[in-house]
């Protein structure tokens, strides 16, 4: 049931045959998650909030900067320095008292994606990097949720609805990420109207999905060029991908699938982050700590063998060659150098560097511990 106030607020859209009171009720019941409150996320959030989407989730770990204001139109001068999800929630709540806004001041990651996404019916991908985009795709496939992709490059944009009623997914369009050619708005430049236009197309798809009306952009990628005004709709088909079978079997996301391949091409050193490290700890592995003896903090739970980097040459035979081996230090640099020596000079294989060092592992571990309380 809609209140008198709601009927008045939404009166102009209630006049539309495709909406009416029944449609407005569906909009009120809908739960939409917007991942990324930046150039795309702001217009999406502004319009779905104004239309009365009942529950809106916002995920963003960034803080508002002055250089965001030209395109991230939910924010003003007073937002600078605030977390984007929180700042967006504040503005949206002032715009519409009838919607519930949940803000998540964190990045979407393999460890939290399932838990956050499962609470919502429709997901909107407004992120700015391939790691997040492929993570969202795979989480939505695992949870059988449709998601609306939007992306921009300078004066061009793409929109599509993926994983809708068995329709194509993002991997059906681009099977694997290519991080070497990845560039976002900060690097390549953008003017606000472009993400504004693309974000509004995404918001339009949100409403059509809720109302089950119109032609959904599923199986179709809409491309738009703001300079030429050329708009194309390219059709694509659903494909099978091995990763989906594996994901369904393991029932969860694997951080290793979303690693940027940050290998030094000449050294070919495999690196992992702290999330992937925590996953591997359950396997039969060997952990080598190349910090100095008694360098703090101590981490007895890791059962690591401490071989300070200066002793690597003398003590290399203490490292089993056939076992997967994680090497760490404080920040990831000494361990990288240790691996380089062991690989290049002594033909060790199976070595993996803990990128960014043990400090990020500790932060990650402590976050999980505090979440479990």
């Amino acid at each position, binding site marked *: 049931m809609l209140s008198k106030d709601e009927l008045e607020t939404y009166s102009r859209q209630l006049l539309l045959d495709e909406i009416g009171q029944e449609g407005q009720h569906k909009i009120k019941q809908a739960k939409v998650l917007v991942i990324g409150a930046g150039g795309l996320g702001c217009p999406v959030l502004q319009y779905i909030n104004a239309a009365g989407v009942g529950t809106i989730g916002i995920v963003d770990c960034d803080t508002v900067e002055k250089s965001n204001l030209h395109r991230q139109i939910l924010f003003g001068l007073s937002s600078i320095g605030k977390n984007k999800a929180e700042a967006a929630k504040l503005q949206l709540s002032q715009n519409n008292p009838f919607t519930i806004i949940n803000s998540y001041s964190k990045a979407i990651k393999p460890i939290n994606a399932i838990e956050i996404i499962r609470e919502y019916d429709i997901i909107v991908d407004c*992120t700015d990097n391939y790691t997040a985009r492929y993570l969202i795709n795979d989480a939505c496939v695992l949870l059988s949720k449709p998601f609306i992709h939007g992306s921009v490059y300078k004066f061009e944009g793409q929109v599509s609805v993926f994983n809708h009623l068995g329709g194509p997914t993002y991997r059906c369009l681009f099977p694997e990420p*290519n991080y070497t*050619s990845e560039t976002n*708005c900060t690097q390549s430049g953008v003017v606000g109207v472009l993400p504004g236009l693309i974000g509004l197309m995404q918001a339009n798809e949100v409403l059509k999905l809720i109302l089950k009306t119109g032609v959904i952009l599923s199986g179709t990628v809409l491309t738009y060029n703001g300079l030429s005004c050329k708009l194309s709709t390219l059709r694509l*088909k659903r494909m099978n991908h091995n990763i989906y079978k594996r994901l369904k079997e393991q029932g969860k996301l694997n951080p290793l699938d979303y690693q940027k391949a940050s290998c030094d091409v000449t050294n070919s050193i495999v690196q992992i982050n702290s999330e992937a490290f925590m996953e591997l700890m359950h396997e039969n592995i060997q952990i080598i700590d190349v910090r100095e003896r008694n360098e703090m903090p101590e981490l007895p739970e890791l059962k690591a063998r401490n071989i300070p980097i200066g002793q690597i040459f003398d003590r290399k035979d203490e490292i089993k060659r056939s076992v997967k081996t994680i090497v760490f230090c404080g920040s990831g640099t000494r361990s990288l150098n240790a691996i380089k020596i062991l690989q290049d000079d002594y033909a060790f294989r199976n070595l993996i560097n803990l990128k960014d060092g043990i400090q990020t592992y500790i932060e990650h571990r402590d976050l999980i511990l505090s979440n479990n309380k």
Partner: protein
Amino acid sequence: MITNVTYFGMIAEQIGVRSEQIPITEQPTPLDLKVFFESKYPVLRKLTYQVAVNLEIESHLDTNQSQVEIALLPPFAGG
């Protein structure tokens, strides 16, 4: 046959062309468009992209036609 080719995003910038007409001689079997364009523009070998023929994502071309529209579409990351 005549192909009207449009290049999107970073591809257009890297090769310095936004659109062009390319004549293609008839072949007995479908033409692998990625191989065709990568030999014309070797920089494409480092990029990820999809090819569309007459607005359908499809990387092979039946050259037994008079005219087609081809598009080369890279992913965009920005948001």
